[in-house]
Each structure stands twice: as C-alpha cells, then as structure tokens.
C-alpha cells in the first residue's frame, strides 16, 4: 500500500512538472493571407521567412507584416499535390554569408524526387542558387517527399525524405534514398563519418532508414538528441529518437494499416528495428516539430511540440528519459490544420496553418 501511494505521488508530481497549461497562453494571428505555407525560418534581425508550396518565399516583419513575396527560382522545381517548395533553414553563418537552404520537390509528374538547394538571401530575393542534393531514384506520382531540414552543430545537415508512397518497400533498401533521412555537408557532399559510408552497395548519404514520410525533425542542443516524426498510413504516426545508422522499421514494423483497411505488415515491432517513442493512432498527420528551449514558457522547457494536419491541433509532449510521460492537445478549438511549428528567437511559439488562406500564429503567455 505504501509503495502504491509513493508511486501515485511520484506520478502526480511528474504530471505537475510536465505542466498542464491549457489556457496559459494567448494566440495572435500575425498574418492571415499565406498560400499553402510550408516552412519558416527566423532571420537574425527578427524578420520571418516563410515558404509557400507554390514556390514563393515571403519575408515578414517580426509583427507579421508582409515585406516581400518572390518566386524562388529553384532548378527543376515541381509543384503538384504534395510537391513544391518545402522547408527553409538558415546557414549557421547566415549573418555573414546570407546563405540559406531550401528543400523542394523537383522533376515532373512521371519522374520526380526531393531536392535540396542553397541560395543567398538579399532584399527578399534569392540569388546564387546552387543544387546540393537530388534524392535518387526519381519516382512517379506526387506524394511523400519528406522535406524537413535540421542543422547539426558539426556543420552538417539532415534532410528528411519520403518513400514516394507507391515504393514503401524501398524504405528498407539501403541502396537508394527512398524512405531515408540523409546527412550532408553544407556543400551537399557526403560527410566521411556517415554511418553507412563504408558499407558496400549503400547510399553513402543515409543517416537513418526505414521511414515513411518524415515531416518533422529537430536537433536539441541541450541533450544532443535528434527527434523526428513521420506520417503513418491509417494510424501509426510515429515520434522517433534518431540514432545514426538505425532502421526505423517501415514498412515491416508499423502500427498503421493501409488507407483501404488492408494490413501493411503483421509486425508492430521487429528485431533490429527501432521502436518509436510514441505512436498516434488514429493518425494526427504530424507535419512540423519544435523542441522548446525558449524563455517565455519555463514550464514547457524541453517539451516537444508537434503540429498536426488531420488532427487539427498542436500536440505538446513532455519527455523524461526519452519516454513520453504526458501529451497535451492544444488549439483544438481552432479546428485548423497546422503545417509547421517553430520556436521563435523571442521564445514565442510560431505556427503556420495549412491551406490556401494559411495563417502565421504566435503563442505567448497570457501575462
């Protein structure tokens, strides 16, 4: 009995420390006329860059006022269905170089893929565009591009990719980039310490494999951990802790089934394949992620925020020892698909809502 009470008290204190904070914040809509926004990045001077899937790059003031909107002239960009201009990330030396990275779908409806380019940003325009990476092979259709970028402290970057939907078995084939997360240098080369670089017959860019469609990745400077999430099919959306060279199971190990109801695999776990930290069934369609290290919400320190499209909400996950100990679903009352979530330099949480009239929202404490 004493043990039970002690365990209950421990659980309750964890619950409190995880910070149940409904209504502890206010939401401001900074911009309400974004056309299918996808990714965002914060400039050192506080301005915000937003990508639109149709290929436009917007510059917004810190208050959300539109300063410019220009077509990103990326090589061979392909805009259809889930394809188009995707994520954006600033180079570590952006203040000096003005360099940034853009991910996008490239090719045409019969042969397309995910590409990465670098460019310099000046006065709302992109210049010196250089193609850095083209995921191979090209595939048919316009789905599952992944496309999120995370910069690592060793001057490399991670680019998430998708399985192309029709090619799910290829996520287990280490000879190509389908269903992988790749690690590249900032010039697009293969780092010599990539996990599979010395393995014959593999794509040297691979960092992790066995993914379906990864649209959220974050590197935590405090813990050194890298987290990603990915869309499952019908059910089985996953939060994963990434470790170099690991296999994350798709399509062999999955908690999801096909959209038609057919079973993809009889296995939810499998030897040699990493199990997810957290699973969402039914699917929430996770599309963006941040790990909060800002100062405005001390109670949310180290929490992971996941924006959800189908779930139409913002999910806050409190972790302890890489276990999700609490999940809080926020902003459900807005009934809006949320494409991306980021921590701003001011400690506020910024969101992009999905759709032809997307919004930039800012979460700040009530007080």
């Amino acid at each position, binding site marked *: 009995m004493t043990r039970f009470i002690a365990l209950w008290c421990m659980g309750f204190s964890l619950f409190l420390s995880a910070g149940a904070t409904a209504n502890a914040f206010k939401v401001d809509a900074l911009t309400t006329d974004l056309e299918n926004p996808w990714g965002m990045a914060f400039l050192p001077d506080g301005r915000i860059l937003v990508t639109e899937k149709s290929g436009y790059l917007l510059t917004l003031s810190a208050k959300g006022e539109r300063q410019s909107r220009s077509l990103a002239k990326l090589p061979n960009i392909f805009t259809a269905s889930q394809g188009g201009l995707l994520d954006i990330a600033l180079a570590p030396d952006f203040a000096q170089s003005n360099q940034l990275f853009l991910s996008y779908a490239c090719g045409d409806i019969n042969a397309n893929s995910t590409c990465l380019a670098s460019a310099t940003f000046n006065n709302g325009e992109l210049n010196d565009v250089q193609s850095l990476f083209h995921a191979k092979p090209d595939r048919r259709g316009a789905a599952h591009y992944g496309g999120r970028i995370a910069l690592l402290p060793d001057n490399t970057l991670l680019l998430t990719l998708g399985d192309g939907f029709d090619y799910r078995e290829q996520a287990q084939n280490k000879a190509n980039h389908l269903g992988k997360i790749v690690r590249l240098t900032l010039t697009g080369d293969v780092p010599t310490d990539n996990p599979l670089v010395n393995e014959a017959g593999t794509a040297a860019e691979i960092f992790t494999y066995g993914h379906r469609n990864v649209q959220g990745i974050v590197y935590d400077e405090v813990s050194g951990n890298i987290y990603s999430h990915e869309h499952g099919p019908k059910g089985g959306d996953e939060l994963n802790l990434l470790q170099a060279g690991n296999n994350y199971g798709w399509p062999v190990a999955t908690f999801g089934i096909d959209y038609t109801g*057919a079973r993809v*695999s009889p296995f939810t776990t499998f030897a040699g394949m990493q199990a997810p930290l957290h699973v969402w069934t039914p699917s929430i369609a996770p599309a963006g992620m941040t790990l909060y290290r800002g100062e405005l919400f001390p109670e949310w320190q180290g929490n992971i925020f996941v924006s959800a499209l189908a779930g139409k909400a913002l999910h806050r996950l409190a972790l302890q020892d890489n276990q999700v100990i609490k999940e809080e679903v926020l902003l459900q009352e807005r009934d809006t698909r949320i494409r991306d979530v980021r921590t701003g330099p001011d400690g506020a949480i910024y969101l992009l809502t999905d759709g032809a009239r997307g919004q930039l929202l800012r979460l700040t404490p009530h007080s």
Partner: protein
Amino acid sequence: MKKLLLFLLAVILAASLGSLLQSLFNLTAISQLAGPISMADWLATILHDLMHFMPVLAAIFFPILLVSLVVSGVLTRWLSLSRIAGSFAIAALGTWIALTLINAFAPMPTLIALNRSVVGTVLLLCCCGIAAIFYRFFTAERRLS
C-alpha cells in the same frame, strides 16, 4: 430477386479474391524484407483483410460490375460475341478504367496497394472478370456460348 442475389454474390466474390491477393502480395513483400512469416500471421492478415479491406473493395467493385455487366449484356447481344469472354473482358476493362480514375483523383498516387504493380493490377482486373463470368453463368438459361 435471384439476379440481385447473384450480383451481390459476384461482387463479394470479386472483393474476396482481391482481398486474398492483396494479403498474398503484401505479405510476400514483407517476407522478402523480414524473412519467413508464421502461418498464424498469414491467417491473421488474411482474416484482417477480409474483414477490413474486402468491404472497401466491394464498394469499389459494386458500380464497376453493375455498369460492365449492363454494357457487356448489350454488346455481346449486338455483336454476337461470346457472353463469357465478353463479360470478362468488359468487366476487366471497366475495372482498369475505374482504377485509373480513382488514382487520378485520390490524394495518393495509388489507392490499392495491389494496383502498384502490373501483375497485381492484372490480377485485380481478373477478379472482376471472374465475378462477371460467375454472374453470367448462374443467370444464364443454359445458352452460354
């Protein structure tokens, strides 16, 4: 009433065959990645697909078979074609057209996993073709040619 019952049985036959093929193809692909799959997993997957996928496939096949049986009934009479061959061919063609339309309008490139490969697609078409023959055979007044 008998024709309606036979038509519904034909739809269920086509969908059940399609579901079994889907299980077979999916698990074969998984076993190529993960090694042998136990009989229990095979049976559980077949049962799962019959319960959850077969009804979806039946909903897709229902209008396909309805239209293709009407069309084949008219065409085989007009053109004096074999009713069995004509029904099979038109049901298969109708299925192919319907799958093409579904994939063009669905958000994903290919809705039904079996439809991802040429062999799988041909077998799906055959499911409807066989169901059309089933219907013709049991509704015929022994005038099959």
